[in-house]
Structures are given as structure tokens and as C-alpha cells.
């Protein structure tokens, strides 16, 4: 009846996951109870859970990403502290638990931390920057989000019911095959990643369609803001790469569930095929993450330098160059596999060449700042921190791209330090820059600068103190994923790295404080103008927070910096352009489809993990029924009357007019 599920699935003998799971459950129940008691449940259901508004979906993505980032950070703290204690000793984490932690850390940070953060920012910003009212497929967008949330939920269920994968964030066979990993850990990984991967794929389809087919009139390709270009490149990579993940995980699933021989050691299976296939997804994946971060910096740096972006066209070219070459470098993850010197040479050279695109971008950001009037607000600090950090991180990558060097450094702590260097220093810094930059647009008040700056400096210092020692241990021969060790030379560096983690914890606390303090003092930090940073692209033309329809009338774009041009004309004339003629606006109706689909996806995933076949069938039928009910609805849209549109837009225009006069007085 319940497949493999029984009372022995709950790890009563392991206090750490049990206590952690209990705390998470208590927090969730507490929040739910609070929401119900305060009477917010209907609001939450109508405005958020069933919302198809890209702005709300974006905020929910970011919330999910931040929570998972903290969860993954907890795993990191446990690993660093384990290595502090496990010198000539066993530490406090037994190997089978430690292995789950590093597997969960990688999976969570990349797929459920960084991805939702990046996709959340794309969701919130892209339609606003394109000057339109929503994405191409609003309900599909909600489905995407809730499928991602399903994946995150399944991974967190594995804390208390059963266990998580012990084979690393990429489940290399034959270790991940049923014979060597008979427990449900790998299955949790497979179904969580598979379900959220489908969500990500649909996001990719949605945003490529949006960016290529739905832009304000006059917004030609070469007038799109840089963030839209990088998001486009990133989503094209999603469309090309995520199906590879789907196919590869499906093959491993068939091996494990039905005894197929894709990657087994016997009967003609080929484990190295898995390594090739999975990196064919996983290498583009890092560019899927970093390209939107590049886009964020390309928005932040011009704004806070009060200058247009230097070398816009070369930036577009560099983005697309990276997008294409991202698919030609995957083999550098396994130079040691033995593909031969010629193959290694080709991929080594490609891996070095891809750095040229990033170099172009670096110079463009530098020249954007040159001669500008730079304001060192928090988003700009994150951008500057990124530029210094990412250059060195990229250089260690070029070093690893040299096959003979890689033979020495492969799978060492040097590698671990390298990819944290570029992902923390690139993606995470970019996301924090983006969150601070667009926060006022989303919520109508700015974030507290003091706490933000403290958070930034702690993150920057903590990052270097943590990871520079790990480079050194790598060169000293320390391999990754060690549960304990007995080499005295590594010991001092491990201790320094632990100190770095303490600084990072302080930084994370500052960031949390930043949000708490800002919410508390939101009236003092209120952004009444809708344009708190003197921005240059169209999102700053809307009030903060923007109305549900974003733009009362679709803007006519006439130049490369759509909003800046309009603003300059208004500043010269000391008045806004003529009031437009307002018409009724059709907006998509809310839909519970995404949430209900995700509910059934959770059931399907959980049932398949525990071999509860009847429940999986129930879930499939439910998911299909949900689609049919959605397809059967007769009124997909509602209308906002012209008076209402006019009222909201006139308020916005009034504020802008006052700001104009105030600035001139």
C-alpha cells in the first residue's frame, strides 16, 4: 500500500536532521497559524498564491530563493565546522550524514537558491523594462514557479522522511545506480530536480517568447536594456540545456527503477556517457546563472555612474558570444576522463576563449564608470565588489582550463574555491545588487543603506577569508568532500576558512537586519517618485510599486535609453509630455492552476520516490484534470475600466510633475 515507506524512514537515531526538520515544520506551522489568525489567508490566496502577475511571481521566486540560500548556507556552516573538528578525529557528522549535506548544499544552492533568485529578478523586471503588461504566458509562469517550489519542498521533506542523496550534487553513476545507492536518497534528488527542471524549462520558453515577441512599440532589438539581452541569452540556454538534464535524469531513473542499462557497469552500460550528458547541461547552467547577473551589473553601473552604458553593442555581442561558446566547453569538467590530448586541447582552448567575452564586459563596465559621477550606494558597492572578485575568480578558471594544470587540481579544494569564487562573487553579488536596486520598485520603499553596506563589506571580507585558504589547501593536495583528514599542513588554513564563515554569518545577519529595519522604517524610506535612483530604463517610469497593468498606455520608445530620453525632454521643458488617451485594459485573471498542478506534482514525486504506484497514478490523473479544467474556462481575462486606468496614471503623472518643478526650483 505504501510502497517502501514505513516508520523506519524517519531517522529517529539522528538528532540533527530530526531537530532541523522539526524546527522547519514549527516555523511553517507558526507562519500558517499567524496568517490565519490575522485573517490574511484570503489575501494571500488571491494576491499571491493564485496570482499570475509577473511582479508577484517574481517576488515569490526571490523569497523562495532567499530561504533556500539560507538553508544551503546552513549546510555550508556544518561542512566547514565539521572539517574544523575532524582533524585526526571523526567530528560530529558521521560520513553518511556528511555526504548528504554536501550533496544537498550543491543541489540547493544552484537549483533552488541561485536559479529562483535569478529567475525571480527576470520575472519582476523584464516586462517592466520592455514596457509591456505581462509575460507571454502568465498562467504558465505561475505553473513554473510552483513546480520549482515543489522541487524545493521534496528536498526538504527528505530531511525527515528517508534521506537525501549521498553522491554529490551531480549523481555520477555507477555510484548513483541502484546497486550502490539502494536507498531513496538518489530518488529524492532525481524527482525534485526533474520536476523543478520542467518548471525552469517552461520559464525559458515563456521569457524568450516574451522578449522576442512582446515589446513596447519602437523598442527594437538594439534598444532593449542590457538586462533583457542577458536574460534572453540565459533563457535560450535554458531551452537548449534543460532538456538535456531532463533526458539524462530520465535515463538514470530508468536504470534505477526498471533495470535499464544506460549507465551501469554491466550489460553494455556506459557510465561516462552520463558524465558527458550531465555536463552538457551543467556547464551551460553556470552561464544561465551568470549572464543575468552580468545584465544586472549593466543596469546598476550606468545608473549609479549617471552615464549611458559604454559599448552597448559590444556588450550584446559578448553576451551572445558567451551564449554560444557556453555549449563548447563542457568537457573541461573531466579532462582526466581520458578523452585524449587532442580533444582536451580543443576544450581547453574553448574554455580560455570564453573568458574573452567576459573581459569585453569588464572593460565596458570600467569605461562606463570612467568620467561618470559615481554614487556609492549599496547596489553599486555589490557591483564593484563583483568586478574585483570576478576577475580573479575568472583567472583561476582559466588556470583550470589548462589540461595539464587540471590534472593536478581536478576535484581538489582549488576547484571548490574557484567555482565558489565565480558563483558567490558573480551570481550572488549580482542578485544582491539586483534586489537592493529593484526593491523600491517592488515595495515602494528603499532598503536601509547602513545595514546594506555592512552586509556587503562582511560578505566581501568573509568571502576572501573563507575561500583564499581553500585555494591554498587545494594546492597542498586536499581533495573535496573530505569528512575527516589527518594532514597537518591543511589544518591552519581550514581554521582560517572557518573564521571566514563566521564573518559571512555576520554578513548574512546584517542582510536580514537590513530587511527588518527597512520594513520597520518604511515610511522614512518611502519612494514617492517611482524613480529613486534617477534610472534610465522603462521600469522607473512606473509608480513604486507599479499598478497591476504596469503601463497605462504602452510607451513609444524612441531611443536606446527609453526612459532617460523622455525624462531629459521633460526636464528641459519643465513639464511632462501630453496626457495620453486612456482605454480599458484587459488583464489575465488569476488562476489556481499553478498551485494545484504543483500539489499534484508533489504527490507524484513523493509517490514515485517511495514506490507508491497507485498514488502516482492518482497524481497524474489529478494533474491532467487540472489542465482540462483550466482549458475549459470561458473568461480568461478581466477588464480594467478607463476611469480607473486614468486615475492611477494621473496620480503617477502628478508626482512626476511635482518632482520636475521641485528639482528646478
Amino acid at each position, binding site marked *: 500500500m505504501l510502497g517502501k515507506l514505513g516508520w523506519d524512514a524517519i531517522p529517529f537515531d539522528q538528532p540533527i536532521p530530526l531537530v532541523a526538520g522539526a524546527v522547519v515544520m514549527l516555523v511553517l506551522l507558526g507562519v500558517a497559524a499567524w496568517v490565519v489568525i490575522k485573517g490574511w489567508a484570503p489575501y494571500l490566496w488571491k494576491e499571491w498564491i493564485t496570482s499570475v502577475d509577473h511582479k508577484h511571481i517574481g517576488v515569490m521566486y526571490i523569497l523562495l530563493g532567499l530561504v533556500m540560500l539560507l538553508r544551503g548556507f546552513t549546510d555550508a556552516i556544518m561542512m566547514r565546522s565539521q572539517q574544523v573538528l575532524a582533524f585526526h578525529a571523526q567530528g560530529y557528522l558521521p560520513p553518511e550524514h556528511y555526504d548528504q549535506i554536501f550533496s544537498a548544499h550543491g543541489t540547493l544552492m544552484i537549483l533552488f537558491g541561485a536559479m529562483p533568485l535569478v529567475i525571480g529578478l527576470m520575472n519582476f523586471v523584464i516586462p517592466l523594462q520592455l514596457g509591456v503588461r505581462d509575460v507571454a504566458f502568465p498562467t504558465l509562469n505561475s505553473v513554473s514557479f510552483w513546480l520549482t517550489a515543489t522541487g524545493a519542498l521534496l528536498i526538504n521533506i527528505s530531511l525527515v522522511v528517508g534521506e537525501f542523496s549521498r553522491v554529490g550534487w551531480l549523481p555520477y553513476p555507477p555510484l548513483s545506480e541502484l546497486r550502490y545507492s539502494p536507498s531513496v536518497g538518489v530518488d529524492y534528488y532525481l524527482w525534485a530536480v526533474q520536476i523543478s527542471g520542467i518548471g525552469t524549462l517552461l520559464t525559458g520558453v515563456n521569457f524568450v517568447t516574451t522578449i522576442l515577441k512582446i515589446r513596447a512599440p519602437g523598442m527594437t532589438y538594439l534598444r532593449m536594456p542590457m538586462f533583457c539581452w542577458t536574460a534572453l541569452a540565459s533563457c535560450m540556454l535554458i531551452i537548449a540545456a534543460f532538456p538535456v538534464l531532463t533526458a539524462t535524469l530520465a535515463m538514470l531513473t530508468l536504470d534505477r527503477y526498471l533495470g535499464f542499462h544506460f549507465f551501469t557497469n554491466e*550489460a553494455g552500460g556506459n557510465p561516462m556517457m552520463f558524465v558527458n550528458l550531465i555536463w552538457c547541461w551543467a556547464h551551460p547552467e553556470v552561464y544561465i546563472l551568470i549572464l543575468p547577473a552580468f545584465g544586472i551589473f549593466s543596469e546598476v553601473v550606468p545608473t549609479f555612474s549617471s552615464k549611458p552604458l559604454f559599448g552597448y553593442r559590444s556588450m550584446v555581442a559578448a553576451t551572445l558570444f558567451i551564449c554560444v561558446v557556453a555549449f563548447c566547453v563542457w568537457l573541461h569538467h573531466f579532462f582526466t576522463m581520458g578523452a585524449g590530448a587532442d580533444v582536451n586541447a580543443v576544450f581547453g582552448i574553448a574554455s580560455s576563449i570564453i573568458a574573452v567575452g567576459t573581459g569585453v564586459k569588464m572593460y565596458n563596465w570600467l569605461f562606463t564608470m570612467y568620467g561618470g559621477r559615481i554614487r556609492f550606494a549599496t547596489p553599486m558597492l555589490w557591483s564593484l565588489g563583483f568586478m574585483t572578485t570576478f576577475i580573479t575568480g575568472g583567472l583561476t578558471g582559466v588556470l583550470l582550463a589548462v589540461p595539464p594544470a587540471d590534472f593536478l587540481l581536478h576535484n581538489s579544494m582549488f576547484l571548490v574555491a574557484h567555482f565558489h569564487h565565480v558563483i558567490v562573487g558573480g551570481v550572488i553579488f549580482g542578485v544582491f545588487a539586483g534586489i537592493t536596486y529593484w526593491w523600491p520598485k517592488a515595495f515602494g520603499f528603499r532598503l536601509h543603506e547602513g545595514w546594506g553596506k555592512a552586509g556587503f563589506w562582511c560578505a566581501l571580507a568573509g568571502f576572501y577569508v573563507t575561500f583564499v585558504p581553500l585555494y591554498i589547501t587545494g594546492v597542498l593536495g586536499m581533495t573535496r568532500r573530505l569528512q575527516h583528514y589527518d594532514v597537518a599542513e591543511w589544518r591552519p588554513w581550514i581554521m582560517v576558512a572557518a573564521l571566514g564563515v563566521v564573518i559571512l554569518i555576520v554578513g548574512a545577519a546584517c542582510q536580514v537586519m537590513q530587511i527588518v529595519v527597512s520594513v520597520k522604517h518604511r515610511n522614512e524610506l518611502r519612494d514617492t517618485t517611482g524613480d529613486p535612483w534617477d534610472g534610465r530604463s522603462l521600469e522607473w517610469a512606473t509608480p513604486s510599486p507599479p499598478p497591476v497593468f504596469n503601463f497605462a498606455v504602452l510607451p513609444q520608445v524612441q531611443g536606446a535609453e527609453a526612459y532617460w530620453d523622455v525624462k531629459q525632454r521633460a526636464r528641459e521643458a519643465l513639464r511632462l509630455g501630453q496626457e495620453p488617451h486612456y482605454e480599458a485594459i484587459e488583464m489575465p485573471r488569476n488562476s489556481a492552476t499553478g498551485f494545484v498542478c504543483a500539489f499534484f506534482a508533489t504527490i507524484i514525486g513523493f509517490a514515485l520516490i517511495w514506490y507508491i504506484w497507485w498514488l502516482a497514478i492518482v497524481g497524474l490523473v489529478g494533474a491532467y484534470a487540472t489542465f482540462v479544467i483550466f482549458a475549459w474556462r470561458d473568461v480568461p481575462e478581466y477588464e480594467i475600466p478607463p476611469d480607473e486606468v486614468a486615475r492611477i496614471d494621473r496620480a503617477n503623472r502628478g508626482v512626476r510633475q511635482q518632482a520636475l518643478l521641485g528639482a528646478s526650483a
Partner: protein
Amino acid sequence: MSTAESTIAFSDPYRLGNRGPNLARGHGGGGPASKRVIVGYGFWLFLLSDIVIFACLFAAYAVLADAIADGPRARDIYDLKRVALETACLLASSFFCGLATIAVARRNQFLTQAALAATGLLGFAFLLLEASEFSGLYALGDGPTRSGFLTGFFTLVGCHGVHVTAGLLWLGTMMAQFFAKGFRPDIRRRFLCFSMFWHFLDIVWVAIFSLVYLVGTRL
């Protein structure tokens, strides 16, 4: 098509061959595209991603084609006569799908339902033929667990079969929608996607027919 609708379709800046004034000229400045274009374009992208999935399965099949593990080779198990029949069913099915497109354009409920029914029946016949091939192999003990080669074969061809099955489910839903809701624009857009999906399955089948069966009988 009524006059009002044809005007809308005609003013679509993204339609093929458009060179009108004030409209898009390849720089993308024409404003948002029509819903039909947006939906069709999005579904094209989805189909491209599906093609990538099939590309992976083709690659895996190619890698594992020689890994027969003392089991049967490709030429021992392929029956080109049945494959020819399967191909005929699928291509004829797509032909009827094309007829359904014409019937939808003419808003003819009876012809639409008839053409879609024929599409579905031929698709179902294809599935029966495939099932008989698979069950025959199972009966001989040459199921997917026998060798790497058979794993690759069953997964690639089976994945196409699963797509056809899902397509049949969609087809049934589509017929019910035409019946219950008539030729509403959103239903027609959905049908546009379905017909693209159905023809896409043909393209994949042509690749399977050539690269798996035709090449396989010579291996």
C-alpha cells in the same frame, strides 16, 4: 475567416513577408505581436526543447548501439515491414490532421470531428503496431534490460510512443473542446499547437525510421 479577423491577422507585424509602412522591418520595433503569433512561437520553442530531448536519446542510442552484451543485434530484431506499416499510419494520420486544419479554418464541426477522429485512429493503430513489436521482443527475453543496445532502442522508440500517447489524450480533449466550445479563437490557437505537435512527431519518426531502423538493418 470573417473580415474583422482577417484584418487583425493582416495587420500582424510579424507575419511572413510583411513589408508594410510603420510596421516591423526586421528590427523588432513593431510593438507586441498578436496572440496567435505569441502562442505559436512559444510552442515552437517548446518543440525545439523537445527535439533536444530526442537528440539526447538519439545520442545515447548511437553510443550504446554496439553494446549488445551477447544479446541480439539490431538486424536480428528489426522488422522493416511492420516499420513501413507504422510509418504509413503515422504519415496518413498527419495528413488527416492537415485536413482537420482546413476544416477548422472553414468552421465545419462535422468535418473537423471526422478528420480528428481519423487522425486519432491512425495514431492508435501506430501505437498498437509498436506495442506488438515491443511485446514480441519481451516474449523473446529481449527487453530493455537485456543489453545497452536494447536499453537505447526501447527508450528512444518508446519515448516517441509516449509522445504519441500524450498526443492522443490531447487530441481527445481537443475534439471535446471543439464540440463543446465551438471555434473560439483560444481553442483554435490551441489546435494550432496540437497540429504542430502532431507533425513534429512525424519528423521525429522520420529520424527514427532512417537512423534506427534503416541504418540498423545494415549493422
